[in-house]
């Protein structure tokens, strides 16, 4: 047997924090052979990123390798000096990060940024650096590389930026590429092309890849071997097919179950004995609650391309409508206009046959329909005032729109907290003292405080771990049942939309390309674009479909 390229044994990493030492990684062992693609899967705080940082020795100052050995290509990384490390980094092993835009220098041309790495590691001279950089751009499949060489990062899309980052990472032909959530935040179709590119380049160059993700489906699609991490420990490490065929650790099973599949129901995401499981509703939608008629919005002059282009649709009483599309398709603009946070240029927004589009967004705060239209925002952190406790955030709509007395509001907040599964002592905390899932629940409690008739959910689970997503989705389904609300569910994740929505609209460039009942639209899409979206979703292998039986 050959010596593996990466050999991590019993690695422990500790962080010094205000509350003493926290061990983030506990006795993790990991080997990667040349040309192999290994995935580390885990939820936030599982230590998956920290493991890769330790491998490159880029832990921040509070962190240190407390035990174990890290060997890369025969070099003892854990004890290497600065010079050896800077030789290794970039040349022998490279890393690509989650946010490609943040990884690029905004005021330098992308071609020059590729040149920098080449020159730094002596892979090119000033004479031929430009040619080599352009060759790299071509290698990451950027069309017209000569021209793109002189582009600035802000002129390129997110997917393009990630390609540039990949080009920089691969410029020196490293033996190992560490990809830390390389496609999180990118559209599904972009995600697919970026992943294909990474895997293809790795194969071409016989390069090993360490792929870090929270998405089991993505790992299953692209990795040879998968390590599942929980609380800093590797709970399971197996070849991909085996892992999905026979997950042995309960955590792996729970994770598999919480990942939405092609044909799971929302209650399937949680264990059978979990009281939070929701019963999917079967009620037929009533008469139209909201009608949007030929609504148009432009940002910029009259000649600019409209962000939302003569959009028309309706939502029935008690109906749950999904709105799917990639970034920039106008779905957020649409929701802002319906929520009356933004004024449309033309068209009507009829709420219970009353045209609310004529009341300006600035005046709408005191409109009687205000309390019937509420929204759950995408980013639970950004949507809570950092200086307000959870209780105050939830109570705000009660004071403003229901004129509740102090005592009544207090009681209602307690009820709401119980309804969304937020324990009472968490209510006095500030947002930074709450976890992502808890913040999401505060946001939901605030939105349903006034029992609105229409609730817009703007990617409510995009920032959450899958196990938390499972709980939140079930909560949303049962709340809708209890309170008889209509949902407009905005998401880029068709698997999630499938679980929650009765009907789906697919949006592209400000227009609806296709709409219909969820089941039929997602199984027999008639439009090419819908098909492309569906094809791009990574799915865990089909064999993992019955983890429930295995768990019981």
């Amino acid at each position, binding site marked *: 047997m050959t010596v593996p390229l990466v050999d991590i044994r019993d690695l422990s990493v500790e962080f010094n924090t205000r509350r003493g030492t926290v061990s983030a990684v506990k006795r993790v062992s990991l080997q990667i052979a040349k040309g192999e693609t290994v995935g580390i899967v885990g939820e936030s705080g599982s230590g998956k990123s920290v493991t890769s940082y330790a491998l490159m020795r880029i832990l921040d100052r509070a962190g240190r390798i407390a035990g174990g050995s890290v060997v890369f290509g025969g070099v003892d990384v854990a004890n290497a000096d600065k010079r050896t490390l800077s030789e290794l980094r970039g040349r022998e092993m490279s890393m690509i990060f989650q946010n490609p835009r943040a990884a690029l220098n905004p005021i330098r041309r992308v071609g020059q940024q590729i040149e920098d790495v080449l020159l730094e590691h002596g892979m090119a001279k000033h004479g031929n650096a430009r040619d080599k950089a352009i060759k790299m751009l071509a290698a990451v499949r950027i069309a017209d590389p000569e021209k793109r060489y002189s582009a600035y990062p802000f002129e390129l899309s997110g997917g393009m930026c990630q390609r540039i980052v990949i080009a920089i990472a691969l410029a020196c032909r490293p033996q190992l590429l560490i990809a830390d959530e390389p496609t999180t935040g990118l559209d599904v179709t972009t995600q697919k092309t970026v992943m294909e590119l990474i895997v293809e380049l790795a194969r071409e160059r016989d390069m090993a890849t360490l792929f870090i993700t929270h998405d089991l489906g993505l790992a299953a699609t692209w990795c040879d071997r998968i390590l599942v991490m929980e609380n800093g420990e590797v709970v399971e490490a197996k070849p991909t097919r085996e892992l999905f065929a026979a997950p042995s650790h309960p955590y792996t099973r729970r994770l598999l179950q919480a990942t939405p599949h092609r044909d799971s129901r929302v209650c399937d995401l949680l264990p059978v004995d979990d009281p939070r499981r929701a019963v999917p509703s079967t009620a037929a939608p009533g008469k139209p609650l909201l009608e949007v008629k030929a609504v148009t919005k432009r940002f910029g002059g009259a000649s600019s391309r409209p962000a939302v282009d003569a959009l028309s649709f309706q939502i029935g009483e008690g109906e749950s409508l999904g709105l799917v599309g990639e970034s920039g398709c106008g779905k957020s603009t649409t929701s802002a206009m319906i929520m009356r946070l933004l004024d449309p240029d033309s068209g009507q927004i009829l709420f219970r046959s009353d045209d609310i589009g004529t009341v300006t967004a600035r005046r709408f*705060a005191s409109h009687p329909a205000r309390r019937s239209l509420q929204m759950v925002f995408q980013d639970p952190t950004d949507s809570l*005032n950092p*200086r307000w406790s959870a209780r105050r955030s939830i109570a705000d709509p009660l004071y403003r729109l229901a004129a509740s007395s102090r005592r009544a509001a207090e009681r209602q907040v307690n009820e709401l907290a119980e309804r969304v599964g937020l324990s009472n002592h968490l209510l006095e905390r500030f947002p930074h*003292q709450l976890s992502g899932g808890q913040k999401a629940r505060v946001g939901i409690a605030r939105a349903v405080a006034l029992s609105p008739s229409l609730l817009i959910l703007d990617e409510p689970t995009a920032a959450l771990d899958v196990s938390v997503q499972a709980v939140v989705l079930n909560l949303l389904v049962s709340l809708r049942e209890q309170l008889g609300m209509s949902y407009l569910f905005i998401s880029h994740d068709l698997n999630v939309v499938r679980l929650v929505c009765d009907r789906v609209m697919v949006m592209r460039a400000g227009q609806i390309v296709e709409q219909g009942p969820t089941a039929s639209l997602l199984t027999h899409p008639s439009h090419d674009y819908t098909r492309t979206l569906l094809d791009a979703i990574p799915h865990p292998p089909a064999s993992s479909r019955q983890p429930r039986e295995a768990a019981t």
Partner: protein
Amino acid sequence: MRATTATQVPNTAAKTTAFGRFVRHLGYVMTENPVTALAFGLFLIFVIAAIFGPWLSPHDPLATLSARALQPPSWDHWFGTDQLGRDVFSRVIVATRLDLMIAVTAVAMAFVVGSALGAIAGYFGGWWDRITGRLVDTIMAFPLFVLAMGIVAAAGNTIDNIVYATAIINLPFYARMARAEVNIRRNSGFVQAARLSGNGDWRILAFQLFPNVLPPMMVQISLNLGWAILNAAGLSFIGLGVRPPTPEWGIMVAEGANFIVSGEWWLALFPGLALMLAVFTFNLLGDGLRDLVDPLRRT
């Protein structure tokens, strides 16, 4: 993906009162950073001197006695005596109240007016933004001390006018800062959420945005307090505002300066030191104050 700490927060916070939490937080801020503790300690001394100065001073700061004029520091007169035989130590202590009062009032006025103008400009934009922006630019275009001199000279040589002049020259910092801080937050998620909860623009500005602008402003306030003391003393030094025989650090330095050449160094040195220490304290205080009002520092 840092190691999670959010889950380890103890649950005791809910049980204590708001005041109890504040005291505990104050304790934490002080113990975490010894410099902050030092700054708070010095600040406390200045506050005590300002409030109880007349009772604490061993001699009457205005009592003149030519028999003991220009004596060097001794056990009886710690900081020596001046040309009229007044006790310098007593004068330095009694002057604290006046100097602090000028600085605090001026900075408070600058803060209230400046941050209100700036926050409104940052939130609404448009013509209001343009007008306040140009106004602030105009003030900043002058050398600020000269502007203050001009204002006091034109409006009349009184303590009130020193306060107004100091407030005016400090105002632009608050206006600019409030404008920038409000501007970056005005479309954030929690502001949108507040609109959905039925809050009007003014309410959002006052209760949602403004509290979030406070922490960086605190640093500015503290730095400005030091600067305002220096400014008030500077104006007195050149003969504007406070007049003799009122004890005030700037005047004392100005009067003492004439005697340095003849070897009576203590006249200018001790009020100068008091001035320096006050400015130093306020400069150090900034970070501590920010940590105190910023809930993100709270655990």
